[in-house]
């Protein structure tokens, strides 16, 4: 089925075609094209609600990942038995939160969405950043993904883990 893209907010104008193209490029780099993936763009209110419900943190954030396959070993792709299991899960992008960050740091929103989505997909594939070892492993994977992305598109994107290691 591919990427299911949903824009549930009206605060930030989004280019859906660009976001889909960027997410498809990331899936291609990771070799997970055959897996379905949900990408949901939400505002601060909705992000805070989800963050509070699932992480008991009553504040908006940049990205939340909900893996379909839990407890994956980082770097190992899921081995689905049925068509229904060809699914990585859902990524919620806090686009209002991210836009504010972009305005403060003078960054391009859609480039930032790519960086944050790469971070989210890593979480769906079992990567974490709770210990230093996990952090290094995740940082290396994100660096690889964005390095390939930069090579394919001529951009200069850097991993999210480097800037912000305590959240999401």
């Amino acid at each position: 089925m591919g990427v299911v893209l949903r824009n549930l907010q009206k605060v930030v104008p989004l280019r859906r075609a660009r976001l889909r193209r960027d997410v498809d490029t990331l899936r291609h780099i990771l070799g997970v094209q055959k897996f379905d993936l949900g990408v949901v763009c939400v505002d601060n209110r909705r992000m805070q609600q989800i963050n509070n419900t699932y992480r008991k943190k009553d504040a908006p954030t940049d990205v939340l990942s909900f893996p379909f396959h839990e407890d994956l070993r980082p770097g190992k792709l899921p081995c689905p038995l049925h068509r229904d299991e060809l699914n990585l899960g859902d990524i919620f992008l806090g686009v209002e939160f991210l836009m504010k960050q972009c305005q403060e740091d003078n960054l391009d929103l859609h480039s930032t969405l790519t960086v944050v989505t790469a971070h989210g997909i890593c979480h769906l594939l079992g990567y974490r950043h709770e210990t230093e070892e996990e952090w290094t492993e995740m940082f290396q994977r994100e660096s690889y993904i964005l390095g390939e992305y930069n090579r394919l598109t001529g951009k200069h994107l850097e991993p999210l883990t480097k800037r912000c290691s305590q959240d999401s």
Partner: protein
Amino acid sequence: MLKSLSRAVGAAVRISTITTSTTSRALPLTSPALCAPSSAAVRPFTRSLWMMNNSGASSGYRPKLFSCKTLGPAVSCGCGSLHTEGDKAFGDFLSDEIKEERKIQKSKTLPKMSGGWELEMNGAEVKLVRSVSGEKISVTFNVNNSIPPSFEEEAEQGQQQQKGEEEQDIVSTPNFVVEVTKQEAAKHSLVFDCHFPEDEVSHGEGEEESDIFSIREVSFQPEGDSDWKETSYTLNTDSLDWALYDHLMDFLADRGVDNTFADELMQLSTAVEHQEYIKFLEDLGSFVKCK
């Protein structure tokens, strides 16, 4: 844990083709619009009453269900029409209802649409028009049958009533048609049939997973022609390449039809629907009272 969006969508696509045709036109129980006998369940009943009263019935038996004697004494006002005690009670009821509705009417004036849209009203039909660099964009919608039915389960009604007797706001979510006309190709307009997915508007604070609005069909139609030309090829978005769908959504957003617009349209439609409802009640009151 959230249920997987992409799995849910797969299931929803199969269901949507069935449910949209049956539920979108059904009148809601909580709708302020007076229930016209439009549903299939009502028709046989009204028809059987008509048959009982039909003077041409072959059996010759006429129970005189509608004769004046059974409805109470007629009151005359000199207009030549029938007036009954029932009509008087009906008129009084309508006066009270109109007062109540005026009380909850947020504003006498309609909310403004941002983005320089001009508003044209024709009864229940509303048209919004704007021009952008040689292109004309018009959006048309009709407030009739635009309030989705309430999805509250009967089992939950007890709970709902305990929540401080709060009445859920009635929101009008009409299908709307966007027509984009380019000056140099004025013979045909590109026409988008858009709608508000039902799960987004009816469940309130849930984990809604639909876009605020979506495109259902796209086709070329003769410019300014109100009749839908069935011979034009119509692109249905149910089985569309999603990348193409996203480009169509971006195309609309560039012309001012985005989530903000859809949200404002919902507010405008709700206000127009309420205004038309009050007007209808007033007309009904005048008709019944023969004023």
